[in-house]
């Protein structure tokens, strides 16, 4: 019985660690893949397409426009004065 409890605890611990932390492979992927989390790769910017639809173009104004449309308003954050003083 005791060994079963220890085994179960060990399995739960492994599962927790696997869920909470990136594996070394994931970490290597993150470091190796330079563009994995930049906005441009994830379509957060609105894209203008050319006639064939194969050459998406985005200008600085498009980005500004998308920021304005997508912004949530108030975020949960400290006051700027806690971070830096003017």
């Amino acid at each position, binding site marked *: 019985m005791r060994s079963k409890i220890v085994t179960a605890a060990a399995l739960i611990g492994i599962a927790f660690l696997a*869920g*909470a*932390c*990136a594996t070394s492979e*994931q*970490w290597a*992927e*993150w*470091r190796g893949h*330079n*563009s*994995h*989390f*930049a*906005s*441009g*790769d*994830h379509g*957060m*910017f609105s*894209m203008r397409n050319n006639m064939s639809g194969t*050459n*998406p*173009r*985005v*200008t*600085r*104004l498009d*980005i*500004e*426009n998308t*920021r*304005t449309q997508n912004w*949530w*308003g*108030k*975020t*949960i*954050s*400290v006051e*700027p*004065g*806690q*971070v*830096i*003083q*003017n």
Partner: protein
Amino acid sequence: MSRRSVASALAVVLVAGAVAPAYAGPADYIMPVEKHTSEKGRALATKYQPQLLQFSEYVYHCLPYLEIRNGLGFKKVPKEQGDNRYAAVWIRAEQAPDPTFAALPMDRQVSAMFSRYAIPMLRRLAAVPGFASDPDVYGFSVAVEWIKPGSDPNRPTMEILAMFADQASTRAFLGMALPAREYVEKMRLTFFDGEKEVGRLPIEVWEDNFVATYQVPGYEMEKGKVCS
């Protein structure tokens, strides 16, 4: 087309023009001189307006996935005695949710953001003409903020890493005369998780060429602008 319909169309255009959002340009990301809370800060802000504008234009045009927040200027450590002024930039890094990033322990996430964004910003600040020989520019400050992975998409929690370092140690680090570990130990470093001040985290610094190499797919630079 009747005169009335022309007038109506014109009115619609005028109203649309009036309510269209006024987009911010590079100059809007610089903290106004008068918002600096000391004479030294205001003098620095006045003296280096062209350099600040150049810095802002670089971020605006060349790194469109970053947004300067709370004004580029000469700021100080909160509640610190004296008036040491740091050339300071606060950037928001826009990033889509990423499970691998989210799975990293907090200090790894912070290390990644520091290495990816804070170091290039420090390098850029240190290269601003005039700062190196100006005793009133005590050091450099970079704050990087990003959306906390897994936070409410309707009201995201922001994570912020803020660092302050003196000019001498920053230049020594950038010139590879000071190891990253020692540089980090010397700097003032604070991490904020939403509304909570977490404090200092054990961060690592490594090479990351993202800012130097990443191009937003299909991004069309404004005519006449050059990134270097």
